[in-house]
């Protein structure tokens, strides 16, 4: 689906994420989904703004809160819903679930930080392939607690890898506010490794795009890793329930909701049409996922593919 610079299309993608996540939470409440999930409601502008700047062949490395990145990338909503519902038609055959997604050049995992060296390795492979692809890796503020992130920054910088690190600073690691988990500064963490870094307090998808494009271009041009820090907020709980944040704080951030912010630029009729279309698409996607056969134990293959 990428790249894209049509404002209406950007809105559609953000809405797709918003409504997907709402349905996902509702499906949980209704017992249609087993397990857990982390939704990105409120952070849609990051996912769509960044991913819409990528080119086909670019690689996206996502994390536990990855539905938004996945949908922004153009991953099929039906296969994502099916994956969360443990269906055979799930994007990973029901094995991965919400946190472990892979589709085309998109990868996500639930081990915080452990994906960052992978992203650096992918960037190394892509650089040598000389198709000019770039790797974009998303990580949360909390993930900066993990040491392997710094090992990766050092390696990526030393080796001038085409890697763009996007920190979605939603101000919390699970329930822990950033002041309690992060010393020093977010930008300093990248500067220390000689990685150019920019930050912005924004939920505007166009602003995110404006910030992203030069980072991607620089990485693609062989200037090495780049970092972008997006100060944002999630409106939903960390996971399914259990929100310990001050409701007044949440309300305050809701005033910068990326969807109405961007919708205000578009014709109301277009917005309504897109809303209808996305609703219908998701209706279909969730219904199809629900109707699909559960993943069957008969589909379990061995853990090693190429046994001698």
């Amino acid at each position: 689906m990428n790249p894209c610079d049509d404002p209406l299309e950007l809105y559609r993608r953000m809405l797709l994420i918003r409504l997907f996540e709402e349905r996902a939470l509702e499906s949980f409440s209704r017992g249609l989904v087993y397990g857990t999930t982390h939704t990105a409601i409120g952070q849609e502008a990051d996912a769509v703004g960044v991913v819409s700047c990528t080119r086909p062949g670019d690689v996206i490395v996502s994390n536990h809160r990855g539905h938004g990145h996945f949908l922004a990338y153009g991953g099929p909503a039906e296969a994502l819903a099916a994956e969360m519902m443990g269906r055979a038609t799930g994007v990973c055959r029901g094995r991965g679930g919400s946190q472990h997604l892979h589709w085309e050049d998109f990868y996500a995992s639930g081990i915080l930080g452990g994906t960052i060296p992978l992203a650096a390795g992918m960037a190394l492979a892509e650089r040598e392939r000389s198709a000019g692809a770039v790797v974009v890796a998303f990580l949360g503020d909390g993930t900066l607690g993990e040491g392997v992130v710094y090992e990766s920054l050092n390696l990526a910088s030393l080796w001038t890898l085409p890697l763009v690190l996007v920190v979605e600073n939603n101000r919390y690691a699970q329930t822990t506010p950033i002041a309690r988990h992060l010393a020093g500064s977010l930008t300093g963490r990248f500067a220390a490794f000689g990685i150019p870094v920019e930050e912005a307090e924004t939920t505007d998808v166009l602003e995110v795009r404006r910030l992203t494009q030069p980072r991607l271009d620089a990485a693609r041009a062989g200037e090495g890793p780049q970092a972008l820090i997006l100060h944002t907020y999630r409106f939903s709980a960390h996971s399914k329930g259990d929100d310990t944040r001050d409701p007044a704080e949440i309300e305050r951030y809701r005033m910068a909701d990326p969807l109405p912010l961007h919708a205000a630029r578009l014709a109301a009729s277009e917005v309504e049409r897109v809303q209808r279309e996305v609703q219908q698409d998701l209706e279909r996607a969730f219904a199809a996922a629900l109707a699909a056969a559960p993943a069957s134990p008969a589909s379990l293959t061995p853990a090693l593919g190429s046994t001698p």
Partner: protein
Amino acid sequence: MTTVLESLNRALHECLAESPQVRLLGEDVLDPYGGAFKVTRGLSGAFPARVLTTPVSEAGIVGLGVGMALRGLRPVVEIMFGDFVLLAADQLVNHAAKLRWMTGDQARVPLVVRTPMGGGRGYGPTHSQSLEKHLLGAPGLRTLAATAAGDPGALLKTAVLLDDDPVLFIEHKLLYGKDLMAGGDEVEKLPVGDRYPAYRLRVAGAPPPSLTLVSYGYPAELALQALKTLAFEHEVFAELFVCTQLAPFDTGLLKESLALTHRLLTIEEGTRSLGWGAEVVAGALEAHGAGLRAGRVAAQDLPIPAAQALEAAVLPAPDSITSAALALAR
């Protein structure tokens, strides 16, 4: 009735109350959240200066715990999911476990690292594992597992307050909500061993056992169901050892039973290969000599899938225990 969760939570309260040396560290352990599985609920309220919420740094906080322990504290570190414990594997094996011995028995590392393992909740491949098998057998590291058959709180308290060596303390997510086993009339329970006992369970009034089951943690609950099914539906009488000390494992525990049954079945939730059961079986065979038969029930050698039907197919269940037991008893 007390649940395993309540028992552990109370024990932590008591540890903090009874010893000024105790500190608690972990990700998101503060109230009102009280930890991802609520084991630390209420602790930060009662002991604000001694309960520390940490960044997402598993190696770092275990290492911090080692340092604190070296200098006289008794830290308890929570790893939010057992799946992340391998991030601290070097800290556990190369630092915590070695320091006492490698310094010529000078240093002490009274550290407890607690973590919930296990599946059955659909959390998928990186949030459902039983990874303790990868750390068992590291010289100098004791691994304990909570069980509803015993007193998990007392077990934890002993480790925190009395043990001068590092302990990896395994909990199971599905065990938290279980009530502690009452001394019911259906099943007889006999504690064996001292500081970290095992529990020997038999159906009350059953004839001498013809089969020895050995398990720990949540799978021991499944084994207990199998024990009853075997007795009541198949007239196969087994006895079940629910262990709390997984490593070092004391084979002597099973001697008397195996001398009677010559048949050993281990039940665990970790994947089968190189699991805890391997050590139990190998140790038993070495001690026992010829004439032993054995089997192992464990998870299939696969990652734990997210989908419910797949997860159930991969993990052990009472049925699979019962059939393995019957195959062995025959």
